[in-house]
């Protein structure tokens, strides 16, 4: 069996090496594919904080992914059409600056996560799953009917947004940005898990009544985790929209929420690199199997079924011989 830290190191090295090799071989599409995997991994790292550590099975995390995407889309749309964004009392201009867009995407996602968390975290189990799903679908149907920003057809952004000192149109440079964001999120998750907050949040998942009886508020702990989780997934949404230079209501869809959960289950729930491995496998299968058959989801489903039945700790669990991060 392999120690988890070696697996983590190998995955990160692989993620760096693959696009660099692709660059030398002039395989630009592989860089884009790896960037897609990195962004999905970032979104799943966000969900993993809520689901893996806090035990909150959110089936509505696409809401934050979509909010991040639309934050980018709307700001870039107003910048490229030179029209102000009317906020009622005040009008602001759009922007093509990635740092500003990331900040807006993260803050709005965090705010929405706070509201959704306040309303949904009073429930547990299947009720929590259903209420988060309902919120996600609410945003989905709102985006479909939002004609100003393309409605069902979505919104195209002609030129990728800019980052000071970089040419984001060069795939390897955009990859580097996304990879840095992923590393930042992974460090955040690692620090959170090792902290007193992480210890308490992990205990809330297992025995909330114990957490209460030692003088901590489980609801508050879960809410903080949910907000951080939503903010990270929102940032991933903004990057995803920039990768495709396109946003559409499908970013809010329940299928996307489900895919994020699948990524985590494939890689290993609650494991630091679980979402990264899950995203890498998902994107590789999507590309490889997708080239062989239109029904590649059937094979993905089969793999998921096998992992759930025979490898409860996901791929990392199989490699380490440990079902959970603490086993």
């Amino acid at each position, binding site marked *: 069996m392999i120690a988890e830290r070696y697996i983590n190191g190998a995955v990160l090295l692989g993620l760096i090496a693959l696009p660099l090799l692709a660059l030398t071989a002039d395989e630009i599409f592989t860089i884009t594919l790896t960037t897609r995997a990195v962004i999905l991994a970032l979104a799943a790292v966000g969900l993993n904080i809520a689901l893996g550590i806090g035990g909150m099975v959110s089936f509505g995390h696409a809401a934050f992914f979509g909010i991040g995407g639309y934050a980018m889309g709307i700001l870039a749309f107003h910048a490229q059409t030179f029209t102000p964004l009317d906020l009622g009392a005040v009008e602001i201009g759009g922007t093509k600056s990635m740092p500003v867009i990331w900040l807006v995407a993260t803050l709005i996602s965090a705010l929405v996560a706070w509201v959704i968390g306040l309303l949904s975290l009073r429930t547990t189990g299947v009720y929590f799953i259903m209420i988060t799903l309902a919120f996600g679908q609410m945003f989905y149907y709102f985006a479909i009917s939002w004609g100003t920003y393309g409605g069902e057809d979505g919104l195209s952004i002609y030129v990728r947004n800019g980052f000071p000192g970089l040419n984001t149109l060069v795939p390897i440079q955009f990859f580097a940005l996304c990879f840095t964001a992923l590393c930042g999120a992974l460090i955040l998750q690692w620090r959170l898990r090792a902290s007193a907050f992480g210890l308490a949040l992990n205990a809330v998942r*297992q025995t909330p*009544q114990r957490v*209460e009886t030692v003088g901590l*508020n489980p609801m508050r702990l879960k809410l903080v985790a949910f907000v951080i989780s939503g903010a990270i997934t929102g940032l991933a949404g903004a990057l995803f929209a920039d990768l495709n230079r396109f946003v559409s209501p499908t970013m809010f869809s329940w299928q996307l929420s489900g895919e994020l959960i699948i990524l985590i289950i494939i890689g290993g729930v609650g494991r630091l690199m679980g979402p990264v491995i899950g995203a890498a496998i998902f994107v590789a299968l999507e590309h490889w199997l997708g080239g062989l058959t239109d029904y590649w989801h059937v094979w993905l489903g089969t793999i998921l079924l096998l992992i759930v039945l025979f490898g409860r700790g996901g791929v990392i669990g199989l490699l380490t011989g440990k079902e959970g991060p603490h086993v």
Partner: protein
Amino acid sequence: MSEPILATHGLQKSFGALTATDDVSIDLMPGEIHAIIGPNGAGKSTLIAQISGSLPSDAGRVDLMGQDVTQLGTEARAKAGLGRTFQISALAMEDTVFENVLLGAVGATSGAWSMFRAVTGNRMLKERAMSALERVGLTEAGNTRCADLSHGQRRQLEVAVALTLAPKAFVMDEPMAGLGAEGSKTMTGFLDGLRAEAPILLVEHDMDAVFALADRISVLVYGRIIATGSVEDIRASREVREAYLGESA
């Protein structure tokens, strides 16, 4: 005469037509072990839940250190000095023994820890946790996963977690449950020494332990306290023997 550390006044709780606790008034004096006994379904666990704040009362009041804590939630009562152990161990089974007591230390010192600093690097929290483990004799098992502990060790760990809070009063729900004769004897000795630190409200079915430990015993039957007194008083009470001890008068 000193003031009670913990007191309930007319606590009441009904579930539909069933009255689980009815006008329950008890108190816990400094240095005392006050045992609550009663048959299954008498309302003991409901009473514990009402006292610890996990179950709101329909009527009545709970005072801790002279302060009315009736409107406070479980976490606020814990912060105010109430240390509770559970009848069925409520431990984080995936975590190690040390992590479980560390959680207690984190709760006891909330505000003194950072959200991003490694909890195991906090010397004060570690010392507090290690001290509690040492007192219940679980130091050697610190790195053992909680799920791998024996039943008796889990009961000890329950008490250790409560100890990290340095509570003003303990509320213990059947700490001897499932322990063998030897384990029960060890736990009895430990609780006997603990009373000097903080008084204990003890719900327990093990009558040998109750008679060995309790300064006072209250008998709860169908949600009502039918008698309160010393071990000798309770043993001599005809009403208690008929209602609970199963003897014909």
